[in-house]
């Protein structure tokens, strides 16, 4: 019996250790594997570099064209971060307003949906006719792309308050505002953070789309233009290098947001708690 348990225990410890290492190793290995497969596919099928360059060539191009791509990455990251901030403010703000007033919600939620589904490409010219400031217009475009998940998830979260807690606040005479700040917002946090993780990627897409429809005059050239241009010029290795940078930015943003989310929730929410073993 004791024997059996000891092996069990050792197995458990071994598994825990494996997981700790695997947490970093596995993604790294998978990425390496993906790169190798990509490389082999390109080599074995003799795919020419102007259709699908191999990872080596993309890496080389990345280094070679860093002078062009580096600043572009920075510009795109900057726009994406601004867009995300605006999306957070706008999304949470709207969700709060909607939760404070059912009238506002009933009346304006449809408009939020309309904004979400409106093709930015189609209305961008209109925006730029009336919005003088290019940066503002740019952020507006990116915001339209990214705000909805935050609004939608935060709204859901604000409505998912524990009923008994809501009653408690009612009894203690909490004002609408106190209820919002002390009860609804913390309850909505896990949902909001989930929306934030979605919006992180979308804000990057928003930055790309916004640059695509509006250019980035005054802030420098971003990755979107580099991709289009490289594609247009058949400089496909550079196009892929730029795409790789976007992908890397996306993963980076996601990782940072996941970390924030973990730190914010680890004390209390199921999704972030470590299981007691």
């Amino acid at each position: 019996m004791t024997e059996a348990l000891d092996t069990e225990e050792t197995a458990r410890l071994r598994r825990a250790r494996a997981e700790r290492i695997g947490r970093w190793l596995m993604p790294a290995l998978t990425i390496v594997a993906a790169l190798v497969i990509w490389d082999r596919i390109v080599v074995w099928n003799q795919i020419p570099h102007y259709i699908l360059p191999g990872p080596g060539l993309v890496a080389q191009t990345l280094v070679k064209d860093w002078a062009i791509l580096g600043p572009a990455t920075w510009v795109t990251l900057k726009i994406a971060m601004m867009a995300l901030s605006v999306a957070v403010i706008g999304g949470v703000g709207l969700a709060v307003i909607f939760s404070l007033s059912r009238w506002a919600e009933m009346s304006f939620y449809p408009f939020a949906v309309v904004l979400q589904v409106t093709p930015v490409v189609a209305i961008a010219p209109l925006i730029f006719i009336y919005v003088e400031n290019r940066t503002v217009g740019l952020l507006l475009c990116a915001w339209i792309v990214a705000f909805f998940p935050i609004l939608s998830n935060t709204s859901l979260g604000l409505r998912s308050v524990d009923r008994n807690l809501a009653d408690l606040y009612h009894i203690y005479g909490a004002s609408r505002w106190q209820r919002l700040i002390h009860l609804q917002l913390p309850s909505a946090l896990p949902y909001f953070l989930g929306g934030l993780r979605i919006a992180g990627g979308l804000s990057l897409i928003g930055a790309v789309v916004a640059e695509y429809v509006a250019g980035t005059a005054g802030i420098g050239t971003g990755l979107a233009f580099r991709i289009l241009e490289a594609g247009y010029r058949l400089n496909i290795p550079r196009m892929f290098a730029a795409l790789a940078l976007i992908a890397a930015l996306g993963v980076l943003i996601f990782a940072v947001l996941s970390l924030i989310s973990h730190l914010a929730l680890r004390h209390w929410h199921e999704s972030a708690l470590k299981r007691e073993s």
Partner: protein
Amino acid sequence: MRMDGVGKVFAGGVTALSGMNLRVATGEFVSLLGPSGCGKSTALRLIAGLMQPTTGKVSWQGKHDSGDLGVVFQEPTLMPWATVEKNVWLPLRLRGESLPDARPRIAQALEMVGLGSFANAYPRELSGGMKMRVSIARALVTQPRLILMDEPFAALDEITRNKMNDDLLALRDRLGCTVIFVTHSVFESVYLSDRIVVMAPRPGRVAEELTVPAPRRDEEFRTSADYAAQCRAVSAALSRATGDA
């Protein structure tokens, strides 16, 4: 406080209460006693104003101000994202008191429920009884003039429970507050209350009311023959009420 012919039918069609009459005077300690599911919690929620009765009225004589109310629900109802201290802070916080200002009173309330050293724990790190005690500390931290409690001591062991009973009585003597108390324990209800309202189920209503005459409530009372006799009387009333169903 008076309830006149109060009835409550839930959306699902369950009649939780029907024609319930109840009068509670200021400073009185009233226990609601009754079988599980007979509508005690529903009555308490109606009194707290959390629901509107389907029929009848709940009315208050004189002012009743939210700052002067303390409640313990049947479930601990703690905010999972806040530490014990912050949970107890809640009623004070809603009145605008800052944490440093409130801290001495929070500590005192936690001390009273025996959780002085758990101020910085999160609710999920507490045992069931400890959560309930935090909830009690939260209800008492404002030293309210009206206390509504729904089986607050059910999850506590006898010794803690007795201590809390005495603490509650002491508080009540000091503040002269009104207490409406839901319990399952005949002993507890007799020990604590001026009046015991025995409820009958399906539909929930008042079956009997018994006054508990007792000059002092202390260890002596608890071991007195009088106490035992009253407990028996209440038990009998309870089984009559249950049998009715």
